[in-house]
């Protein structure tokens, strides 16, 4: 049965969105992206030297992976909006992963600037996938101003600490009116599986794969974790209980008490 991730009318078979940052080489990145099975992958917009040839875009095109430009490094709504417009011009897509960072060391989002940029871009016809903190109120506001997907962090970008506040993530999911993608904080496969088990529609990660000792191997692990977590979510887990519940019925058990002795 098809179980597609649908964002703004686009259907994706893979629920794993990859980033391209942190890879040691384009070769290593290519192997990792292929192993991940991703169909959508972020790229950044940076100053281009004259005569520059051969980019991450060629790599994505070769494998039929759609590019999702981001606004990484923007600290104000104004910069993020301008960067999104440049990305639309360069890549011919109105999809944008919106990041508006509020702090250099934690790379946590600036909620006020983020909301303003999200509203401006959504009004301008962009398909906005907003990287946000795990604040349920802000997540709701981002959906309300027109974001196509809300992407709360599990933990700070590149920290690999996993999902620090599953309770907040549940609140976001309970109230979600758009797809919710866990973005940032994933360290290893179990983090991605947990996100999906909690009900996230997808996972976006980069560092956990690109900075792993064997990126392609970790990419495969992430693909399987996202698939397994999704299946487990759909299957419905058993409730946690404090005491054991025997899986083997006691009815029909043999009477094996010893004889009276003779």
């Amino acid at each position, binding site marked *: 049965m098809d179980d597609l991730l649908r964002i703004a009318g686009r259907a994706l078979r893979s629920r794993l969105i990859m*980033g*391209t*940052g*942190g*890879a040691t080489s*384009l070769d290593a*990145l290519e192997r990792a992206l292929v192993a991940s099975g991703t169909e959508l992958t*972020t*790229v*950044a*917009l*940076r*100053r*281009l*030297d*004259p*005569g*520059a040839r051969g*980019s*991450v*875009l060629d790599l994505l095109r070769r494998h039929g992976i759609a*590019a*999702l*430009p*981001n606004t*990484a490094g923007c600290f104000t709504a104004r910069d993020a909006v*301008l960067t999104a*417009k*440049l*990305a639309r*011009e*360069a*890549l011919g897509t109105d999809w944008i*992963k919106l*990041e508006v960072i509020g702090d250099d060391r934690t790379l946590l989002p600036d909620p006020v600037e983020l909301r303003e940029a999200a509203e401006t871009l959504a009004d301008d016809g962009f398909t906005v996938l907003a990287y946000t903190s795990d604040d349920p109120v802000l997540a709701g506001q981002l959906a309300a101003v027109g974001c196509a997907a809300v992407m709360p962090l599990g933990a700070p970008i590149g920290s690999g600490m996993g999902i620090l506040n599953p309770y907040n993530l549940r609140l976001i999911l309970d109230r979600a009116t758009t797809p919710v993608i866990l973005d940032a904080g994933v360290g290893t496969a179990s983090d991605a599986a947990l996100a999906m088990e909690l009900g996230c529609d997808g996972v976006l990660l*980069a560092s956990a794969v690109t900075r792993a000792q064997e990126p392609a191997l970790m990419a495969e692990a992430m693909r399987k974790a996202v698939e397994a977590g999704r299946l487990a979510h759909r299957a419905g887990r058993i409730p946690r209980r404090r005491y054991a519940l025997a899986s083997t019925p006691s009815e029909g058990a043999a009477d094996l008490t010893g004889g009276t002795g003779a």
Partner: protein
Amino acid sequence: MRILLNGRPAEVEAVTLAEALARLGYDAGGAGVAVAVDGEVVPRGSWRSRALAGGERVEVLGATQGG
């Protein structure tokens, strides 16, 4: 004239943005490239008509690894 190209001073003889980009060695087709002049996006279709003046800040951007 002297412009600021990606944050660095550059000398280029050109009337339009398209000419300047070509003389500076950028791919004329411009696929995967976006340009801003003094903080405003200049769509590819306007590169030939956008006159360039000395001192303007030209940013030439492309997709790279990130995120």
